[in-house]
């Protein structure tokens, strides 16, 4: 049910983000979702890509520090309060959201949000129990 995300440590220097996209581009790896969290000195680039094993390998070969994290892709009703309902559900069950970002896709029916939870397995259980649709990794990569 989980999605593999790769995270990359970046110094806040000109051209570092371009270096990442160039490496992935040359390796023929498509970026499906991207989030950049940064401070004044460094940033963490979070990516969902078509081939996370290969992406990790080529980035490491090019000197980047790369980590792998399991995140959860959640279908959110594309209406006011859609996201809030999910967050309230998680909050009521003491699940902490470490971070989240949006996934890019074609349809306008639902939004897909990527979540990093502190207790991932419990979060999945609660979401499924409440009929929230979780998109498995292999399905997500092909949306």
């Amino acid at each position: 049910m989980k999605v593999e995300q790769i995270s990359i440590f970046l110094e806040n220097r000109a051209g570092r983000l371009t270096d990442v996209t160039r490496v992935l581009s040359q390796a023929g790896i498509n970026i499906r979702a991207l989030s950049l969290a940064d401070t004044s000195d460094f940033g963490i680039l979070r990516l969902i890509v078509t081939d996370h094993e290969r992406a990790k390998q080529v980035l490491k070969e090019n000197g980047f520090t790369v980590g792998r994290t399991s995140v959860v892709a959640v279908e959110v009703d594309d209406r006011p309060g859609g996201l809030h309902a999910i967050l309230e559900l998680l909050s009521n069950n003491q699940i902490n959201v470490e971070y989240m970002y949006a996934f890019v896709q074609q349809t306008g029916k639902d939004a897909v949000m990527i979540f990093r939870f502190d207790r991932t397995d419990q979060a999945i259980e609660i979401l499924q129990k409440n009929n929230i649709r979780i998109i498995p990794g292999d399905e997500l990569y092909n949306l």
Partner: protein
Amino acid sequence: MIFDIDRETAPREDLEPLQLSRLRNLVERVHANVPFYRRKFEEAGLRPEQIKTLQDLKYLPFTEKQDLRNNYPFGLFAVPKENVVRIHASSGTTGKATVVGYTHRDVRNWAGLMARAFMAAGVNRGDVVHNAYGYGLFTGGLGVHYGAEELGATIVPISGGGTKRQVMLLRDFGPTVLCSTPSYSLFLYEAAQEAGMPFSDLPIRVGIFGAEPWSEEMRLDIESKLGLIALDIYGLSEIMGPGVAMECAVAQKGLHIFEDHFLPEIIDPNTGEQLPPGATGELVLTTLTKEAQPLIRYRTRDITSLNYVPCRCGRTHVRMNRVKGRSDDMLIIRGVNVFPSQIEALLLETEGLTPHYQLILNRQGAMDTLEVRVEVDEKLFSDEVRHLQRLEGKIQGNIKEFLGVTAKVKLVEPRSLTRSEGKAQRIIDQRPKV
């Protein structure tokens, strides 16, 4: 096992008369043959025959590195030039080069002392030594080389650089001993990992590391990564090269100074006064047997202490503790004395930090500033910003708590910090000179 058991285990009541006899002979010889020393003695109102006891050493004048530069190239030789069979020289990066000459006996003594050092490290014939110290004018490579051959071990004179080839030869030749700077050993470890060769597969049993300051925490890091016993060797090119002092594998608690050849003292680096046994200060060495270029009370600038407690390895020669740093490497930041090795120790204590760091010093107005740059490797990395920020705060807090200095901590990408394949460049002092 002890290479020269008579000399290395001589009771101190036998060792000290030998030292005194050699000291008196030395003083007479330099007075007669080295104009520089004759002038220094005259300026101090000193005659050689006044040196009657080892305690009289304190009346002799100091020798400084600048004296070697001022007398470049051969002004400090105590023998005719035709008796000098080898000349080493420093790089001269911090000033004019310093030259050191050796007679044939000097070279043989050096090989014997290095053989002692190897045996103190648990090395013997049958061992294969991978010598990654540089060969050439630098004393490290050749010093290790002739010591290994004197001992009867097999030497692989790989020298420095060519790291991929080093890894290949480590795999193919199967050495049991690694000699290099400590930072280069970690560089070799990284290169071996990248080549898909676990260092733990190698039969290397012992590492003999020196030529740069390194901390006890770095030793533990090297030992756990490379899977060997990491031992400290000490030497100065001006005095001889490697093999002035060696940590024994039995105790792993300080380096035995080969006192039949070198007379050690600890002084206050500011006043020049001798300090009592056990006190920390600057190490001063007098060469007792050097023929070509003896040095009297040479100020090493290395900060350490001397331990006269008998060692359980059986050697009676005094042990110097790990060099904390150099008095001239000592950074004074807002009036606080800081050694780079202290910061390194704090970084190693912080969970999982590899010792790739750099200190950037600068000044804003009248205030000194210190920035500590630390490379983030996979072990340190987190996908959450706040974990990395907490790490920065932790490092900063430790530096403040233990050293009393406020530092800015900056996390940088791997291999951002330039790696020379020899000594690591740890300090970049950008403060304008007053």
